[in-house]
């Protein structure tokens, strides 16, 4: 199958003429920097419960924004009326905002330079745009999933949903960069609910959201797809076992954590902690800061020597993958943690200018391409790359890791998550927890949460699995910034072994 190209219904839109008009007016007004971003983001969501389509809705976000640096201050304005007159007005509005902002901007804004990328295009890797598939066909798949789940004796109710996104962006700036890009992502999922003698519980799919097309849903396990049939067959029995499982005894356990759970711990305790804007205080009033402050670069022992973490916006099928970021920077991959030590951060152009030493090959600094805005109406900020834990080249299998544990738990699937504003203290639950006794799985336990401090946790990582255990997980719903923005991001990791982690019994915590 040939690779999809740019959607002609997007390329027919007047973004070039609007961009020229806006940037031309910004130049006339004497700005030191201006960029124009035109976006169309299409969303479609389907929700099914107990064999019935509950809702199907389409949403399209279409508009443009002008961002300027004028007299050392940012100015940003956006609109949805797609005329050159409006583009000129929006440029003027952005400059007016910069003048107001100038009264309160005590540190002049500067950004790191970036080579000009003149009229380049980029399209993500997928086969079938899910938005081209008829809703009825997609609904039939979800309905079938819930019907099959409900054949399980333990399943009282079942739900399934599918979120799909087609994102198109055009970026242009006064330096001469022009990029036109397109990417597709989707998040299918299901959940089965059931009741036991003294409890009600659920079990959800552990399939990750991906930067792939409809082939991820119907293509089977091959070629990077997901084996939905196998998981749907297993989940009712897994839920039945969970409903009968004993409640965990709180204490300290060794954990073998599957990638379907560990990706989220990476996201919260490494991904966010190594965003330089957080480390420098830019999110102090909202998402928070970071314990991994800039003075610790090169010295902080983040974890054990087997810990190697990369930032990467080029990972195939990654949710944060793109050719050029929302400041016209070509995307890259780089080390964040090497042999357990903090060695890098995620940057945008303003951050890169503040810390040019992070990229010694570029005297004025260079961003590693982490600027992103989730809509035409929002200003780009530093957002997360695909931050991934690397496997050991000749590392063990999951079974071998379990075999090294005398008393512990094997954790599969994510559920509840929470971490503090400096990314120290976290607590996670999961879809299922298996007791490990003398290197063997001996059945599920329930009411489990694990709680730790970031550096203690990663320091307790004794082993990472081999490449065969590595899975690219991720999320559609990463929140940051004011006004709030939502980003999608992937995190790959191998199954890994941690020693001596605190386990809570959530029923005890609730005082039940």
């Amino acid at each position: 199958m040939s690779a999809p190209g740019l959607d002609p219904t997007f390329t027919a839109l007047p973004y070039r003429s609007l961009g020229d008009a806006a940037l031309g007016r910004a130049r006339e007004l004497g700005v030191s920097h201006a960029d124009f971003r035109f976006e169309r983001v299409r969303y479609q969501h389907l929700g099914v419960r107990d064999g019935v389509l509950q809702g199907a809705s389409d949403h399209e976000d279409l508009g443009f924004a002008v961002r300027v640096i004028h007299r050392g201050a940012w100015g940003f304005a956006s609109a949805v009326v797609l005329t050159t007159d409006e583009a000129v007005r929006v440029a003027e509005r952005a400059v007016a905002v910069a003048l107001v902002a100038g009264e309160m901007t005590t540190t002049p804004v500067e950004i790191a330079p970036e080579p000009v990328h003149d009229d380049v295009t980029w399209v993500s890797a997928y086969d079938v745009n899910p938005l081209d598939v008829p809703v009825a066909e997609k609904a039939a798949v979800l309905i079938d999933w819930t019907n099959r789940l409900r054949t399980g004796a333990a399943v009282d109710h079942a739900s399934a949903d599918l979120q799909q996104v087609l994102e198109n962006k055009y970026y242009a700036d006064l330096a001469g960069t022009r990029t036109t890009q397109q990417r597709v992502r989707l998040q299918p999922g299901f959940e089965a609910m059931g009741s036991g003698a003294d409890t009600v519980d659920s079990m959800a799919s552990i399939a990750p959201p991906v930067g792939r097309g409809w082939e991820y849903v119907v293509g089977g396990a091959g070629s990077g797809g997901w084996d939905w049939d196998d998981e749907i067959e297993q989940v009712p029995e897994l839920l039945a076992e969970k409903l009968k499982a004993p409640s965990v005894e709180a204490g300290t356990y060794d954990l073998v954590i599957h990638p379907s759970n560990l990706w989220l711990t990476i996201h919260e305790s490494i991904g966010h902690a190594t965003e330089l804007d957080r480390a420098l205080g830019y999110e102090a009033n909202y998402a928070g800061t970071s314990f991994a402050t800039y003075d610790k670069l090169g010295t902080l022992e983040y974890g054990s020597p087997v810990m190697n973490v990369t930032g990467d916006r080029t990972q195939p099928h990654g949710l944060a993958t793109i050719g050029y970021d929302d400041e016209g920077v070509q995307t890259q991959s780089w080390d964040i943690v090497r042999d357990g030590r903090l060695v890098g951060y995620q940057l945008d152009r303003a951050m890169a200018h503040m810390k040019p030493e992070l990229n010694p090959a570029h005297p004025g600094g260079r961003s590693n391409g982490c600027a992103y805005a989730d809509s035409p109406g929002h200003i780009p900020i530093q957002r997360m790359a695909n931050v991934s834990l690397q496997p050991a080249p000749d590392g063990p299998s999951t079974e071998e890791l379990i075999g090294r544990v005398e008393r512990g738990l094997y954790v599969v699937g994510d559920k509840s998550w929470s971490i503090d504003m400096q990314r120290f203290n976290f607590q996670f639950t999961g879809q299922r927890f298996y007791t490990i006794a003398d290197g063997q799985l001996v059945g599920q336990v329930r009411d489990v949460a694990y709680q730790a401090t970031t550096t203690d946790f990663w320091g307790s990582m004794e082993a990472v699995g081999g490449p065969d255990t590595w899975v690219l997980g991720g999320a559609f719903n990463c929140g940051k910034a004011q006004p709030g923005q939502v980003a999608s991001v992937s995190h790959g990791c191998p199954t890994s072994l941690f020693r001596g982690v605190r386990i809570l019994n959530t029923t005890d915590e609730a005082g039940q």
Partner: protein
Amino acid sequence: MTIQQTGTLTPQSLVEHALATSVADDTVVIVRDSTSANLRWANNTLTTNGVMHGITVTVVSFVRQAGGVATGSVTGSASSAAQVTALVEAADAAARAGSPAEDADDLVSGAAAADWDEEPGATDIHVYDRFAPALGEAFGRASSAGRILYGFVNHEVVTTYLGSTTGLRLRHVQPTGHHACTGKTADLTQSAWVGGATRDFSDVDALAMEETLAQRLAWGKRRVDLPAGRYDTILPPAAVADLMIDAYWYAGARVAWEGQSVYSRRGGGTRIGEAIAAPGVNLFSDPAYDGLQCAPFAVAASSSNESSVFDNGLPLGRTDWIRDGELTSLLQTRHSAAMTSQPVTPAIDNLVLSVDGASGGIDDLVAGTERGLLLTCLWYIRVVDQQSLLLTGLTRDGVYLVENGEITGAVNNFRFNESPVDLLRRFSHASSTGPSFSREWGDDYFSRTATPALRVPDFNMSSVSQAM
């Protein structure tokens, strides 16, 4: 679906054009015109800002077919007739290809509201004409005193126009604003926060905000490290709002009826009619509540457990969720109300908690506490267990030690594990109810709350957080 526009129309014209263009059996059109302006700062300097204008049009088409009524819902940015036509065609096609909706019901009928013809409300950067210079001055005061400010102000005006082929022509203007500022000492070892909601920024004083932060940071000159455990804890209105919003969001009737929430009755059905909180506790929503006014009619772009496109335009009035400690209502659509044999009580965009007989403020609760903790706000709150509505989260930006009725120092942060429903049973004291702002949910999801401060004698601080 994307059509290049050639001209702009009023929101009312967009509604009428969509209704006239649709060939479905019935149609509901929702137009939202939004303007917003924001300022954000960190390290005593402005960081980002913006003014935005958006117009979205939602077309919900209803097509009768064998076995019921199918629906199609399509939303898009649109300001021209051509763009709206494309949305209508897509919605009609989706309905024709759809299957019968389980929540099908008669559409709400009505006539044009008196304000239907009025223009949308608006805001712009000048909403900060008084605030912005004061903020600049606050930066100067903070810098000279060795304090660092980080914060955000946002003002948004959204005007909703809802029209239907059954005659509805409803309009609602919703101003939403909030302000928040975090202050830190220069060595970053102490942190404090102040924030609130506003409708127009006429009541927001940047210098007063800075003064409050200075006072709170001064409380931290004595640092006391405490271990995890259960503490006599005063939750200020912001923290109570954080927790009550979760209690409200997870109050869906259908989910409770199907056995999956804290509001489910063991053995089947819901806990409506059961005393779930202490006597005198009232949790309610009211579109007309003074200072928290919100849309007095239901608006739904799609159907789910707690919303139905068939309910668009349904009038909303005061709804008691908990009255005198008894669970009285859950979030209903007409469909779930029929399923659970309960009255139709849709979600409303504000929430009030009050305690009969409560009076005074936080200072009074502090004065009556021999030894305990005073919190500032909560953060990163997530559900751990739906059956108990066990929540986990963190204290943030100021935990203070209360000894003999006075604040005597600042304490480390904690991770908590608690159920808001259980707290409504266990609290020992409450203040009077006043406007509040949820640190966790107020920015983006739910800013209209009024809550008291609550004192809980045994709040579960599960572990210590090193965050400062």
